[in-house]
């Protein structure tokens, strides 16, 4: 089940002794059920702040965020958050790292515990169930982190540059995995990235943000003429470089202007 997200004129400011830092300025967008939205913007423009607002960790100074028509604090949806770092705890083995999310929000505990085993098999991590994160490579660690997020069956996924710490090859593999899961389960997903290619290869829609205080400069629908689209095949689409140059220029102009 996907969810429809609506962000309506959101503003956010950090307050400090030296004054107010306006980070988000009247930002609005929508994400339909099952839609994959990528957000690109110059570094330090407030992308992570926006994601924190979407996950309910921060409350916007102005404006509203609703999911399926309900305010996020009351909406009955589970939000999955993939972080930039894998954030595995080195004092827990891999299995217990995944189980952390079940311990914290214990709905249908048994079913999900059963699920851990299945997912570990799917990702070739079965043999590492009881080893510690320090024994895993970067890509495997990020997969364990992915299982930790998915085990809660989120309706709605927030991805905060989850591939940026990986080497190029692993990055392609892991983003392929995530893309398939999100498509198969028709989840709504918001991806934050500074990598334009990654955004085009995965998203249905890209929002280009301005520098701080940030707002949407342009919304671009991505239509690629490839069969059986995956982040990997998407890169072969004839439209790919056109989108790339367009977004690149947009970001560049945004930084100057």
């Amino acid at each position, binding site marked *: 089940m996907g969810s429809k997200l609506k962000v309506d004129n959101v503003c956010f400011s950090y307050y400090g002794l030296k004054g107010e830092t306006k980070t988000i300025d009247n930002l609005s967008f929508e994400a339909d059920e099952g839609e994959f939205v990528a957000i690109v913007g110059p570094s330090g423009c407030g992308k992570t702040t926006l994601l924190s607002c979407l996950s309910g960790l921060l409350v916007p100074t102005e404006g509203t965020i609703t999911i399926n028509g309900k305010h996020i604090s009351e909406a009955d949806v589970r939000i999955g958050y993939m972080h930039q770092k894998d*954030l595995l*705890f080195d004092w827990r083995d891999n299995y217990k790292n995944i189980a952390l999310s079940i311990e*914290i929000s214990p709905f249908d505990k048994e079913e999900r515990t059963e699920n851990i085993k299945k997912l570990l098999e799917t990702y070739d991590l079965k043999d590492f169930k009881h080893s*510690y994160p320090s024994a895993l490579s970067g890509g495997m660690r990020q997969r364990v982190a992915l299982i930790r997020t998915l085990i809660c069956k989120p309706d709605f996924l927030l991805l905060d540059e989850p591939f940026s710490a990986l080497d190029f090859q692993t990055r392609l593999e892991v983003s392929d995995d995530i893309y398939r899961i999100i498509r198969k389960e028709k989840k709504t997903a918001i991806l934050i990235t500074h990598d334009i290619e990654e955004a085009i290869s995965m998203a249905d829609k890209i929002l280009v943000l301005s520098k701080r205080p940030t707002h949407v400069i342009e919304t671009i629908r991505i239509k690629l003429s490839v069969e059986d689209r995956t982040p990997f095949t998407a890169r072969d689409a004839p439209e790919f470089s056109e989108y790339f140059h367009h977004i690149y220029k947009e970001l560049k102009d945004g930084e100057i202007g």
Partner: protein
Amino acid sequence: MEKSDNGAVSYGQKQFMRKYRIRQIIIHTSRLLILVLFIGGWEMLTKYKIIDSFIFSSPSRIIKAAVKYWTDGTLKYHIGVTLAETFICFAIVILGGMAAAVLLWWNDLVYRILEPYLVILNSLPKSALAPLFIVWLGTGMRTIIVAAISVAIFGAIMSLYEHFRQTDPDKIKLIYTLGGNKLTVLFKVVIPSNKAFIINVMKVNMGLSLVGVIIGEFVAANAGLGYLILYASQVFKLDLVLLSITILAFVAAVLYLALDLLERFCLRSR
């Protein structure tokens, strides 16, 4: 021994093992030698009257004293008193220190308000408070425990709090994004990620508790190893003074080793 693929031990590996064994032998024999030379030298110096065994005692006199005071129950009693006081003080310092550090971590406002007082209390030489405790609480076990707690607890609170505060903010954010609250953060991240440090604080404070208890027994006791040392020195029973100090050294070492075992047990999974 590690073997290479064909089962034979290589020349380099043999050399390495030989060097390692020689090093181990040097370490252990030297340790033993220091002990033997120290005790033997001491015994000889007093036997040939180069130093006065009435003032400096001697290993043989200490052993004689040990047998005498152990059989009449004096030692057992005083060791028991010191250990009991140390354990009570240690337990209160650790439990109270943890509780206070958690409170300060939980509520930054409370920390900001109390910070200057904690800094002053932490840097004040606590032995200066001893006379005050005697006036307020009299002499005896209660005064000694309060004095010993005052020696250790402020340092424990400050260092635990500092480490709690430095917990990786990204890991804390992870717990919130998984739907946890502050209590979950405390029990799933803050305490487990600082487990090694908490045990370290326990080690330091076991030592400090013993220091505090001995200081307390010097000024306000009629039992315990500290009392025994002070009393015996005043009546010039130097055998008993040195015996008590030797026992104290053993007690300190055993307590340290016990916590070392606890540490290995708790951190064995890593």
